[in-house]
């Protein structure tokens, strides 16, 4: 049974956000609070904390390199290495340094001037892709967001966080459990739906993901929901059968309306190195990704690979994840990101 609800009641009177549990035999233990959930902490302070944690080392490295002296080749090599350790990759690091040094080679610069200039060079690449995700409804039904990515990238958590943000803006949100493959994926998403007061739409584990998406759209539309977030199973981009399955989800959604899905987000783990290039390229080619979300920036990974991605694919980076808590989602800001990456405090 879809939505595990009595068909007869389904028409109009269906209670919003109340969906029968999906085989809830083992109730979720209550969650002890953890650091990310501390009340009173603002998004910004957490981004600051997260990103600065990851950038102090880089910042320190730059400080070590010079006090005030001529910008010479040795210094540039050192800067390039620092960028490489931030996952920019050898090619992008070399390009950023070349751009940065163009009018500065041989000039006297101090630590802060270096940081500011390097951040400037990086921000210039990132600015065009720092585009917020607009959830404007373009047609009668809900605004549909399909969320995809490799295994463990943070898709489900990101959906929970997005749902929370939307609820705060007064939008009505539905979440569809398109991961019918991984053990307890449905249960995991259901907890997020409950936390955020979203309508939860699911079928049995093992169901066809495309059918889930198709029927979820119908249900969400019927219930007058503003935004429908569709979770999908994690998949490695080089598995053609799994990518075909994702294409099918989209194909089936388009039967409702050719504009669907309105947004297809690729979730990238900032811990990922140069393989992110292959991920973005394949997901973009196969499922028309419209934008990126970069997660786990509260860790020690710097996520510098996005600079090369921005340059090469020019896909918008909408959001960043900075923790496991419900509020740990931030709009992507080019300057904040580049400042943090080079360890610059303004």
């Amino acid at each position, binding site marked *: 049974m879809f939505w595990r609800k009595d068909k007869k009641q389904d028409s109009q009177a269906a209670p919003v956000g109340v969906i029968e549990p999906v085989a809830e035999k083992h109730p979720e233990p209550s969650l002890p609070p953890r650091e990310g959930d501390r009340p009173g902490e603002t998004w910004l302070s957490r981004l600051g904390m997260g990103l600065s944690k990851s950038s102090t080392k880089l910042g320190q490295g730059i400080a070590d390199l010079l006090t005030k002296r001529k910008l010479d080749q040795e210094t540039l090599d050192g800067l390039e290495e620092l960028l490489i350790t931030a996952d920019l990759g050898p090619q992008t690091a070399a390009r950023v340094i070349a751009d940065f040094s163009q009018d500065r080679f041989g000039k006297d610069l101090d630590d802060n001037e270096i940081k500011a200039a390097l951040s400037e060079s990086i921000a210039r690449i990132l600015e065009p892709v720092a585009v917020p995700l607009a959830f404007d409804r373009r047609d009668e039904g809900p605004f549909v967001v399909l969320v995809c990515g490799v295994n463990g990238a943070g898709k489900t958590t990101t959906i929970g966080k997005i749902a929370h943000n939307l609820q705060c803006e007064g939008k009505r949100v539905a979440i569809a459990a398109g991961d019918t493959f991984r053990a307890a994926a449905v249960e995991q998403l259901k907890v997020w739906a409950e936390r955020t007061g979203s309508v939860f739409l699911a079928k049995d584990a093992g169901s066809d993901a495309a059918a889930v998406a198709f029927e979820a759209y119908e249900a969400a539309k019927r219930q007058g929901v503003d935004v429908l977030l569709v979770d999908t199973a994690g998949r490695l981009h080089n598995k053609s059968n799994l990518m075909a399955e994702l294409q099918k989800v989209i194909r089936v959604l388009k039967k409702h309306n050719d504009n669907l899905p309105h947004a297809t987000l690729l979730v990238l783990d900032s*811990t990922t190195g140069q393989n992110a290039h292959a991920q973005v390229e394949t997901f973009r080619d196969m499922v028309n990704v419209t934008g990126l979300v970069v997660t786990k920036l509260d860790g020690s990974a710097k996520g510098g690979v996005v600079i090369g991605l921005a340059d090469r694919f020019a896909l918008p980076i909408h959001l960043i994840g900075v923790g496991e808590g419900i509020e740990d989602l931030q709009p992507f800001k080019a300057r904040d990101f580049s400042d943090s990456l080079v360890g610059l405090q303004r």
Partner: protein
Amino acid sequence: MFESLGQKLGKVFTGLRGKGALKEDDVNDAMREIRVALLEADVALPVVKAFIETVKTKAIGQEVIASVTPAQQVVKIVHDALVEMLGSETAELKFTAPPSVYLMVGLQGSGKTTSTAKIARMLSEKQRKKVLMASLDVYRPAAQEQLRQLGAQTDIATLPILAGQKPAEITKRALEAGCLEGFDVVILDTAGRLAIDEEMMAEVALVRDLAKPVETLLVADAMTGQDAVNVAKAFEDKVGLSGIILTRVDGDARGGAALSMKSVTGKPVKFLGTGEKSDALEPFHPDRIAGRILGMGDVVSLVEKAIETVDQNEAEEMARKFQKGQFDFNDLLMQMRQMQKMGGVQSLVKMLPGLGEMASKLDEAGVDDKIIKRQEAIILSMTPQERSKPEILNASRKRRIAEGCGMTVQDVNKLYKQLQQMQTVMKRMKKMGMGKMAGMMQGLMNDKDKEIMAERMQAQGFKGLPGNGGDFLGANPFLKKK
């Protein structure tokens, strides 16, 4: 996107072909390319630097062997040094007086829970151990439920979930159950945590003190970038590791993180996760990862895998047929099935040196496992006689076969043509003494592909490619075991 390392090194060494010893200048140029290749493969920078220094000293002054190019020789030196650094032996899991406790740790989303189930399944199926799994992840929604479901799927016991318990309390309960209920191994799956999250690192250290694990395994994603060194070092310092499990090796990441983590912790990579299913766990092969890091595929593992998968009798039977130049639909069917057992066309192609690009070509050409499944269906709707005597296929038989499997006569014709091509290849192979694998690959390729493949093999030749790349699997792997 990137020029292959083989090609780049080829350029560095043009003009040097077969002349005396490797000179310092040439080696330095080559090392610049190696450095970029390693960084592109996500090997951490400090590790790259140390590695380059070691290899440089080894390479300078070495005599260039007449039969290989200097580029090939440098690649071989680099490859061997990589293998050495990655650890030459395949490490085994240790046991104590029961229950042996294993602790699984790592970042969020690295694959701990799936790996827990895989290790449990391997121990229970291959070593007849009685295993208990317990999830200490009280943070991520439904994490405990995930492990419970995996246990149910694989018939491995899991510790009953009690709401509201802290990780330390669950640990105690797991140890108690382990003792009382006579489990050989208790595997503790922990919540993902950031290496810089001090509170959470202290939490897992507490669990370690309670459980005194004999194995503490860091589960890390093969896609991990430069941060791998920081993560591995933090877990080694604060928790103490006995080994590493590298996950998502079935992806196309070059896997430099393996080298980074091995060199900063000194702890061996023990297993590779190669798929989402609970049996997709393989022992670590340094050769295989070395080849990947260099972007050169892996011949050795391919041959090993082939030997392991193919039934010896079947193989000998087939080898006899080859000798006679016979090859019918039964053989084709058998090959298709063996190929599937080995992970399908795509994964086989990826394991061959220099064929990374070919994989996408096969994709474009639509040669994938689905096609093989369809071809299998065609053969299955043939009569036994038709299968063993392909030449009796006439128009009406073909029509009947096509109808039987829901495909067109054209499809049947295509398969028949492929069989004939393979018969030709087999005859040629017989002369050259090539393995069946090679035949399989060739049978699936058109002439253009074969050209590309031959070219790339020339450009990339290294260890295991005797001479000129014609005989790329060395010898028939199926006859080797005699």
